[in-house]
């Protein structure tokens, strides 16, 4: 620790909101001064309040602007967070070229593993099991490739993520039209229309392994996480460790992850994602060459501060310091609180955080991305923060999460709080009988957005006693309520099918 204080290190976080604040905490604990970047429209964001210095940049997605900002304040380290430029080798390389330490993997590793096809080929080469898959040559014999892979299958964008440019195909006849629209979407989203076919596992679980590499061929794993509860590939509930998983599968996943880390001489924190089917088979999906949103659950069960470990490594890369990983203990769950309405196809619900009161208590950890009074727009990701709990077992962790959610007060805009709370008491969630489509296929119909009559009657009583008197003022907006129509969301009835699966 002492050697760190000699020359004041300065770290710029090329990210915003919650993850920027997480990295700032780690820096302040290590005596490192912090620099925030702020893009137009994000002035109110929480990370801007907390940094020691702030530099305006044109966009969080502009590598040159961010490197220039870092140089202008004499930053010695740059942490990319997740999303944005975190997996763009051009950014990592530019940071290192400017003589600053990039807190993450090398640019070349991102290129090697960023492309899903390259990553699959690498995995197969070192014996890591992958799903039956095939490249798609436009004009090539799509049907033959598809038959090799077998139906049902997924058409996937090689450069994509988050469900973009993805189409499910059950029958050979639908191949061509699906491939055409998927390629168009992928081209629009990532500037790269290349696709590949991948066998579809019916009720898969999404299990990922947290790894940390010393950049010289050495590495450790920090056990696995389960992120099966997703909606359109957007995770909202993550756990460590994965319950209901045989030791054989668990050890197989860890070994496969380490093989990859050592093969590519991976540096810093990373995550290797797998699909696990219900016959104990597991298949490599992709590697995220960055710190994940859900890293706190791994920190809770291992006691390892992943951000400290990343920063320490970046400060003296020669010293191949790998974290000492003790046996995992207990169970941890994280939920992501979003400004969105799950009962309206997860429609964004922007607004102002009029009242904010995070829960406090034993083994309740809050990663806040907002402050009271902050206006949340729609130009940036709508995650408001994360609630993370730990308990000695999964059953208690779910109860602790329920109590933490019951004590969370975010008022002034819509959030998915009630949806997350409903998950805590769902029998399938408790029994682990879920898969990556369960939220959309099963839970969507169970979730009741409208409060019970008794609750509404109580609110109605409050209203009569003048609480929230503001209610009766004349309506400012143009909408004068007319006939009762069963259809009618502000953006219409946007069910799941609003977005192609």
């Amino acid at each position: 620790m002492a050697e760190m204080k000699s020359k004041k290190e300065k770290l710029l976080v090329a990210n915003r909101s919650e993850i920027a604040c997480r990295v700032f905490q780690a820096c302040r604990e290590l005596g490192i001064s912090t620099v925030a970047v702020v893009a137009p429209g994000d002035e109110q964001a929480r990370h801007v309040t907390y940094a020691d210095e702030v530099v305006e940049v044109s966009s969080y997605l502009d590598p040159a602007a961010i490197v220039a900002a870092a140089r202008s304040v004499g930053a010695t380290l740059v942490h990319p967070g997740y999303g944005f430029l975190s997996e763009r080798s051009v950014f990592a390389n530019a940071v290192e070229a400017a003589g600053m330490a990039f807190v993450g993997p090398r640019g070349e590793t991102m290129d090697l593993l960023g492309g899903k096809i390259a990553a699959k080929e690498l995995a197969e080469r070192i014996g890591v099991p992958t799903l039956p898959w095939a490249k798609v040559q436009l004009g090539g014999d799509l049907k033959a490739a598809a038959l090799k892979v077998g139906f049902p299958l997924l058409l996937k964008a090689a450069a994509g993520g988050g469900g973009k440019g993805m189409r499910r195909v059950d029958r050979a006849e639908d191949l061509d039209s699906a491939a055409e629209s998927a390629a168009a979407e992928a081209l629009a989203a990532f500037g790269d229309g290349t696709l590949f076919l991948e066998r579809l596992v019916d009720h898969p679980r999404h299990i990922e392994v947290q790894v940390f590499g010393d950049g010289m061929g050495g590495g450790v794993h920090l056990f696995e996480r389960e992120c099966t509860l997703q909606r359109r590939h957007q995770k909202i509930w993550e756990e460590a460790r994965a319950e209901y998983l045989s030791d054989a599968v668990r050890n197989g996943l860890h070994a496969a992850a380490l093989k990859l880390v050592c093969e590519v001489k991976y540096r810093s924190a990373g995550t290797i994602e797998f699909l696990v089917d219900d016959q104990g088979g597991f298949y490599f999906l992709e590697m995220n060459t960055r710190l994940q949103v859900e890293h706190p659950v791994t920190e809770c069960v291992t006691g390892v501060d992943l951000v400290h470990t990343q920063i320490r490594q970046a400060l003296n890369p020669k010293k191949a310091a790998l974290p000492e990983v003790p046996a995992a203990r207990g169970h941890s769950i994280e939920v992501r609180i979003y400004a969105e309405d799950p009962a309206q196809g997860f429609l964004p619900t922007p607004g102002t955080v009029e009242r904010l009161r995070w829960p406090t208590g034993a083994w309740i950890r809050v990663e806040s991305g907002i402050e009271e009074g902050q206006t949340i727009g729609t130009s940036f990701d709508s995650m408001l923060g994360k609630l993370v709990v730990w308990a000695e077992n999964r059953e208690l962790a779910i109860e602790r999460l329920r109590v933490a959610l019951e004590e969370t007060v975010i008022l002034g805009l819509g959030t998915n709080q009630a949806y997350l709370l409903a998950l805590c008491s769902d029998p399938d969630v408790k029994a682990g009988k879920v898969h990556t489509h369960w939220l959309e296929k099963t839970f969507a119909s169970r979730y009741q957005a409208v409060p019970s009559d008794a609750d509404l009657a109580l609110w109605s009583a409050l209203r009569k006693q003048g609480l929230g008197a503001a209610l009766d003022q004349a309506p400012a907006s143009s909408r004068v309520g007319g006939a009762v129509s069963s259809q009618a969301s502000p953006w219409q009835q946007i069910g799941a099918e609003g977005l192609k699966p």
Partner: protein
Amino acid sequence: MSQSNGTLKISGQRVTIPEPSQGWEIECRPGGWLIAIRKNADGTTERRRLAVWSKRQSVGLILGGRLSSFEVQKTARAGMASGAPDDSDLVAQFPGKVRKLLVKAGEEVPAGQPLLQVEAMKMEFTIRAPFAGKIAKWHVTEGQQLMPGIRFLDLEAKTEKES
């Protein structure tokens, strides 16, 4: 349920506000908590803790950790033709971009028919006809930036009563 208490719009669903339940005493406590206490006939007391925020029509209500945010619809004034179809859903609620217009002006569409696709927050949404009718006029073009309050199109309701 009587219409007198007005209606709410919760997650796009219209709900009639039920009769206020009786016998609650409300206590405002530090931390902005409201405690509603009711002594029941059997001598037990019911105690509910909630946080409420409201401004003009919009309400945020947290009861037992369940957040519901909704809009209170003003009860239709006596003079208004109560049957007028509600076309508030054809107005943009927040910033976004028009991706694709799916129907042409003049076309007849049933209720629920996809009209256009918009993109907000890196996600795509389909706007459907809130009621059957004819596309009178488009007010937006593909690729156009949207701000809250911009009306997409005029949709003339079909003559026969809404089902």
